[in-house]
């Protein structure tokens, strides 16, 4: 990481604490993500990976500081972050009362620079193409799509406004190996082609190895291991080794 050039750091998390009632979930996390880099977050179930994303996105209370491009983000005022980021939720989180194109174009239709309906449909079809889905499903409802298709539509929705930072919460969990591969490739393409910064939560070391530059291994709300993705598989760290082996 480039410590001498603070302007290159897109997202910085300082002394992040999160607790529910008396249970501490995140315990003094410090993370920096440089521009164009991709960080993978791994760790056992229930260690607070999803909560970490929720804190960054201001979807829950926390203690500590989160900075975006050097600007401190307030809990209720994250417009700069929302305008420049995209988030892929663990379950897709498509709006089930809206059809595919309305989902994809939601952001560009409901914001100040409102696009017309015609433009929005066109853009949605283009996005469908980008995530390798046929444009003919643009009027389907999310309930009519398979899980893998929903994830792709959700990905299209997350990248519609050309964000410069992307968050993924288990983008491939629950998908078959072929779809997993396809989605991983889509993500790699996006990140490389558009020089997007990203934070990816995943249980799949193979995906992480393919996509990410750095890895954070989280256990019980603490960073247990942090390093380059190439060092991960050779690491002597016991917990990380156990985790990687159990995944094989």
């Amino acid at each position, binding site marked *: 990481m480039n410590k001498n050039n603070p302007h290159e750091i897109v997202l910085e998390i300082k002394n992040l604490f999160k607790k529910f009632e008396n249970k501490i979930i995140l315990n003094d996390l410090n993370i920096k993500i440089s521009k164009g880099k991709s960080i993978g977050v791994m760790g056992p179930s229930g260690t607070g990976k999803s909560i970490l994303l*929720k804190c960054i996105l201001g*979807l829950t209370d926390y203690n500590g500081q989160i900075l975006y491009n050097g600007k401190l983000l307030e809990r209720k005022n994250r*417009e700069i972050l929302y305008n420049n980021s995209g988030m892929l*939720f663990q379950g897709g989180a498509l709006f089930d009362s809206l059809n595919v194109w309305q989902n994809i174009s939601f952001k560009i239709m*409901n914001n100040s620079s*409102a696009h017309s309906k015609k433009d929005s449909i066109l853009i949605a079809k283009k996005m469908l193409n980008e995530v390798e889905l046929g444009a003919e499903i643009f009027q389907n409802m999310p309930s009519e799509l398979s899980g893998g298709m929903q994830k792709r539509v959700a990905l299209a929705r997350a990248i519609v406004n050309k964000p410069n930072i992307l968050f993924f919460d288990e983008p491939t969990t629950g998908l078959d190996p072929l779809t997993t591969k396809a989605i991983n490739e889509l993500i790699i393409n996006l990140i490389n082609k558009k020089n997007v910064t990203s934070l990816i939560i995943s249980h799949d070391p193979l995906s992480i190895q393919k996509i990410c530059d750095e890895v954070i291994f989280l256990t019980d709300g603490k960073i247990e291991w942090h390093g380059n993705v190439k060092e991960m598989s050779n690491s002597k760290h016991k917990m990380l080794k156990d985790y990687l082996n159990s995944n094989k």
Partner: protein
Amino acid sequence: MKINKQKLYYLIPITIGKSVSNFIIEIGTVVSFLLYAIFNALIPPLYINEYLKQIMRVGWASLPVVGLTAFFTGGALALQIYSGGTRLNAESAVPSIVAIGFLRELGPVLCGLMVAGRVSASIAAEIATMKVTEQIDALTTLGTDPIKYLVSPRIIVTTIFLPILTTIGNIIGIFGGFLISTERLGFNPTFYIESSIRYIELSDIYSSLIKAAVFGMIISTMGCYFGFKASKGALGVGKATTDAVVFSSILILAFNYFLTELLFRT
């Protein structure tokens, strides 16, 4: 286990105090939720489409339920007042009592309770499902305020449309009474209509509308609030739905009493 009496004396006031303060905090939360939704409804972007959807769902789709309940209740009311009235030789009071009873009480309360069962439940279930499946979080990350997008249209539309639905219910209910009275009880139609209208005052009509608007606000606020409060899982959605219907029904009946005190105190 041996119960420590001394400890019990401490515990009782502490528990009562805690639940009272939690209750007051909850009321405060609901009120600020409602106010936030109303004030934000006025600031653009306005999400007109969401309002149109709610109009169809709350206004149009509730008509059959409200109409049918009002019709049968109007008929039953006429029969009851007639059979009770014969004991006092007061059968001629049927038309005016049906009309006044419907406008002041039955119309808004029936309509409120029926719509509470339908609309409050479906709002709570919909929003709770969105919460549980992270759709509400998705709205936020797409730069849209979920309360402004989801709650404001539901509260505004229900508050405006319940008086309209109630007025339609009043007309159908009074007509139900008219039909039973003239067809079954042998009332003269002209006499019936004349004596219905003679005793109706303007205050009966506007009190009906005020009550209905308050009930509409209660129904939608409860649906939205419990939907947003829902905890994870299908259980959370079920609980949100039940809570919304139970609390809106109780609040409708309670507010009905206080509004009656307020509007008809002489």
